[in-house]
């Protein structure tokens, strides 16, 4: 069942230097009980997409200029702010990248969760406390009853991220947007938190939009993947297809830059150049300046190819069949 559908979303930033089309016409959907990975280099519009869903982009300079974001059939983009506020935190929750600054330093963590619970569920103090302890043990915080009264600075980064997740999940949302939830954490904590997300997906049918630039994380946890480049979706596929038959040259490049894809002893391959500045994206395919397969046709808008079941790519010269194997070899 489709939980969230994004249709042709455009979020632009209007700065003194010019208009930055950070998100420029993207479409994808998230189903119930599915973890959707959104991958891409820094600055490709992943976070802006996530923030556009809840309409929390800093405004000005940012603005959603076009597109629809359907949640349960209701358009979040045109919805009045009061109605959206009831959805934020209750039906759609978000966890942020930096656990160190995601909690308010002046309140205890329990107090911060209590406010969310009383806002959305109207729980009184005792009920809220019971619920918080329950949530804390769910996310794997040891001694949950004692941690309720702790201040953020008394907790480690991993602990704070768990509190953030508990806060995001305490009103039983149906969609969780996780913006690089594990980037700031060490590897063991990272694995625990990702396992928790998988568990919540399986047990509660939670839909998750997992933003990351770590393809390892994607391979382990995601069901489907959206690859973004320069504000556009270049490839959408289920996770097996993406790793087995990547079609877009950019996806292939990303996979080639993984250390484990390289043969021992050989140099690690990289994608030449940098992500172009949003101020002067190339016309047509935005990857063409860095693409080894680019031709003159690439200055035109690339067409959408359906490569397989649910596997779509936006490219003039996609890799087909096992073609990419040769590229890697």
């Amino acid at each position, binding site marked *: 069942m489709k939980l969230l559908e994004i249709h042709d979303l455009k979020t632009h930033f209007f700065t003194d230097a010019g208009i930055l089309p950070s998100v420029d016409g993207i479409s994808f959907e998230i189903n119930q009980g599915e973890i959707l990975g959104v991958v891409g280099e820094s600055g490709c519009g992943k976070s802006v997409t996530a923030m556009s869903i*809840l309409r*929390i982009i*800093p405004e*000005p300079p940012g603005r959603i200029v076009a597109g629809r974001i359907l949640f349960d059939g209701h358009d979040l983009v045109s919805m009045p702010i009061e109605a959206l*506020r*009831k*959805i*934020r*935190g*209750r039906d759609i*929750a*978000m966890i*942020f*990248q*930096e656990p160190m*600054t*995601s*909690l*308010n*330093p*002046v*309140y205890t963590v329990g107090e911060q969760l209590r*406010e*969310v619970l009383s*806002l*959305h569920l109207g729980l009184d103090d005792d009920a809220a406390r019971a619920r918080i302890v329950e949530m804390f043990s769910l996310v794997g915080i040891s001694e949950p009853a004692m941690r309720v009264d*702790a*201040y953020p*600075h*008394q907790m480690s980064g991993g602990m704070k991220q768990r509190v*953030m997740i508990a*806060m995001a999940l305490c009103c039983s949302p149906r969609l969780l947007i996780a913006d690089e939830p594990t980037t700031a954490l060490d590897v063991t904590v990272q694995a625990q938190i990702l396992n928790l997300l998988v568990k919540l997906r399986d047990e509660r049918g939670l839909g998750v939009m997992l933003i990351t630039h770590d393809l390892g994380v994607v391979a382990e946890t995601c069901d489907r993947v959206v690859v973004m480049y320069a504000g556009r979706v270049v490839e959408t596929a289920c996770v097996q297809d993406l790793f087995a038959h990547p079609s877009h040259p950019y996806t292939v490049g990303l996979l080639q830059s993984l250390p484990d894809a390289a043969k021992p002893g050989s140099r690690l391959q990289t994608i030449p150049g940098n992500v172009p500045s949003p101020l002067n994206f190339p016309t047509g395919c935005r990857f063409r300046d860095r693409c080894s397969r680019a031709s003159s046709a690439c200055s035109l808008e690339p067409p959408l190819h359906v490569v397989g079941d649910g596997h779509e790519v936006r490219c003039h010269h996609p890799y087909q069949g096992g073609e990419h194997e040769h590229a890697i070899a």
Partner: protein
Amino acid sequence: MSSARYSDLVWHQFKKYTLAYRSLQMLVALLLLAVFAPLLASDKPLLWRVSNGPWESPWFWSLFDRNVYEGTLDIVFNVMLVLGVPSFFLFFVGAVREPPVRTLRVLLVLFGILLLFTLFHHPSHAKISYPDLEKIMIAEGQEVTSVYPLLPFGFQSVDLSNVRSPISWAHPLGTDNAGRDVCTRMIYGTRISMTVGLFSVALYMVIGTILGALAGYYGGRVDALILRLIEVMLSIPSLFLILAMAAFVEKRSIFHVMLIIAAVLWTTPARLVRGEFMRLRSMEFVVAAVASGFGKRHIMFREMLPNALGPVLVTATFGVASSILIESTVSFLGLGDITVPSWGQILNTGRSTGMWTLILAPGIAIFITVSLLNLVGEGLRDAMDPKLRQ
């Protein structure tokens, strides 16, 4: 450290700065001096008995007497005195270390009732000079027993037979050109300075914080508007602005002076809070609060403001010092409230009469108070600086 609250942390750290901590204690002592002024100096006898008549306490009833204490400010302090003594015994002598909230609430309500009562209460018999009355009665052959405070003078009681008297046991700082006891006036002047400091700072902190918060939160046009307003205020030399404003008010009371001070000084906290809010606006916990569905008011005042208050509190301490200085300046230049015995007024009298006690006493008092406040402010600033914490 038992508790981990930020305020406790700062307090714990502050106590380590001996100089600042001692300064704070001295300021509290000064505040107590302001509250207990009538116990030290009053021309109303604490106890009074004529012949074998009943014991009376004209002093006690004069505390609520609008004819004796004309200023609302003094009445407020007197009510604090009356309620302060019993609560002092209740909480400290009675060894109740943590005053229960309910008792405090009862005291607050009592304070309000007593204040309202005294503000509208005008007894008719008040304009009696008890020392004169005593002389007359003794001359008439009546037996008078009376107990006066240490300094048996009112801060307004004129004694033309005792003008410009030098320092003596009866007048520790002499008398001024109208025969008023300078020491008494200095003690009551503490009330003025404390009120000017605390009240005008409280006033402009509220104004400045709200405007700064709006500017920092909304940014854009709101910010530009408030910022221009601040810039206009800043571009006028503040002393001239104060003098110009003071000149426009015809019957200046001390509250007008406080309002004028607040109207000039609000730009400092406004700029500070604006900056803090701009910094906090992009902090992830604020974005997270928006994403959790909280409204603007909650985000501004519950999430952001407590995080912005630290530096504001430090400037507030310095603000008290500068407010006291400004009041003194305005009074010294003759644009203050001439009915109150503020330190600046005493200084002004000293300037016009050339009496050195009238210059030195308020001068030193202002110097000490402002220094203490600055020391406390600096201690507070250091205590809040995480880099200086060990």
